[in-house]
């Protein structure tokens, strides 16, 4: 028990950048990090929703700023990282959360749609690591939101699976590289199952649109059937991000934290 800090799950004095932090899992993550003591730069393309998330954090007594941010644009990553340092005093935690999906059978998937998913979900994460790692110091933590879709396959989401699988292994590559260079920076991935958010709802609706289920209820029932504990909540993911952001995980590097109610256990 020697050398254990009083409360290692606290994040006081740390600055976190959460991409896609305006809504859904990202907003829950930003709020949880702030509640645990971190100052948070909420970045998103959705300005009004992002500002509202910042306002909620401030109303709860937390510290946060909003930054308009398209994660596919390298210059905007440089600016976002600089903003975290200039406005909040540094960067110890990067949560690469921004992500999109497109629903289509492989034979029907437009190449532009495929590329767009890869651009946001893969290039966005790469650029985030590239620019955050340049300023991060020992003890910093990078948390990449992959998905159970980065571990198993499913119908009509080829681009999403490809992108999340890439995030899973980019994470390990970065983890090994950061360790080899002696940076003292950890890189881990989180793999949520279905979480009740706008994106989760859209994911279910897509099955109806594609004619793979007769209606929303049927699609939801089919997806629920493979989630033995039902669907998750954004807070389930946010709690794990706080754990990985904290010094409690100082020896975790290159790990996959699966939060899926048993989906991939079967």
């Amino acid at each position, binding site marked *: 028990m020697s050398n254990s800090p009083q409360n290692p799950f606290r994040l006081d004095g740390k600055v976190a950048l959460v991409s896609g932090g305006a809504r859904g899992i990202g907003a829950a993550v930003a709020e949880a990090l702030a509640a645990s003591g971190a100052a948070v730069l909420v970045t998103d393309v959705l300005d009004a929703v992002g500002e509202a998330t910042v306002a909620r954090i401030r109303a709860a007594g937390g510290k946060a700023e909003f930054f308009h941010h398209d994660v596919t644009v390298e210059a905007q990553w440089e600016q976002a990282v600089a903003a975290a340092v200039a406005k909040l005093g540094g960067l110890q935690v990067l949560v690469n959360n921004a992500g999109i999906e497109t629903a289509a059978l492989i034979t029907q998937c437009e190449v532009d749609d495929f590329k767009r998913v890869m651009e946001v979900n893969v290039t966005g994460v790469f650029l985030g690591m590239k620019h955050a790692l340049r300023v991060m110091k020992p003890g910093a933590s990078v948390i990449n939101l992959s998905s159970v879709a980065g571990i198993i396959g499913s119908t009509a989401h080829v681009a999403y699976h490809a992108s999340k699988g890439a995030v899973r292994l980019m994470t390990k590559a970065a983890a090994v590289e950061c360790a080899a260079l002696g940076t003292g920076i950890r890189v881990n991935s989180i793999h949520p199952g279905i979480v009740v958010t706008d994106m989760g709802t859209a994911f279910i609706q897509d099955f109806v649109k594609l004619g793979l289920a007769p209606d929303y209820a049927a699609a939801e029932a089919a997806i629920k059937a493979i989630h*033995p504990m039902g669907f998750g909540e954004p807070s389930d993911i946010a709690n794990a991000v706080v754990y990985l952001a904290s010094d*409690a995980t100082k*020896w*975790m*590097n290159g790990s996959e934290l*699966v939060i899926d109610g048993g989906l991939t256990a079967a």
Partner: protein
Amino acid sequence: MARVSNKVALVTGGAKGIGEACALLLAKEGAKLVVSDLDIAAGEKVVKAIKAAGGEAIFIQQDVTDEASWPKAIAATVERFGALHVLVNNAGIAIPGSAVDATLADWRKTMAVNLDAVFLGTKYAIPAMTGTVGSGGGSIINISSIEGIVADPNLAAYNASKGGVRIFTKSAALHCAKNGLKIRVNSVHPGYIWTPMVEDFLNSIGDVSEGRAGLDSLHPIGHVGEVMDVAYGVLYLASDESKFVTGSELVIDGGYTAQ
């Protein structure tokens, strides 16, 4: 802020090493502890430390490989604290030996402690948790190892036992989830942690300090882990913060299996 207040936790192999750290941390975070071990003196010492820090704990001597010990251990837990919410199946041994060198006796002993006991603990804990859990549900945490994911030519029996724990955990998780039991079952996979077990293991195969340097170099982060690194993971899985996590593998290994 206590993260597992009002929970009752049973930790096997709780007298030393990772088990001791888990017991102390869970108690510090508000849980009432049952420390189970073969070693009475070391186990009582952990209980004393928990009480001295203001916590509640009892020691029970238990041979986890003995089926009859499990109903007794769980009955003692429920009798003293009224419930069982968290079981940490931590007790384990490591006997070096390749697929050719390992003796059948060593193989069976390893399986008995590392795998039979995890099965037995889970088998008897689930009905107890089902009967007594509050809104938070129950959590069973099985300590596997990176050696349940990747192999070592000189750890044939240990590899087999820890691989068994890994997939048994998923089976138990699915049983609980599909039956709506509100009990989660997960495995933890530490890399090499500096504990009496690892020290004894190194001693059995050669020079301890040389051995430690060799183990340090296996982990990309550059050093073996500390017991608290694992204890914090167990705390996360024991708490309601991980209520949607079941059948998962929590790898805490300094990057060992990422490379």
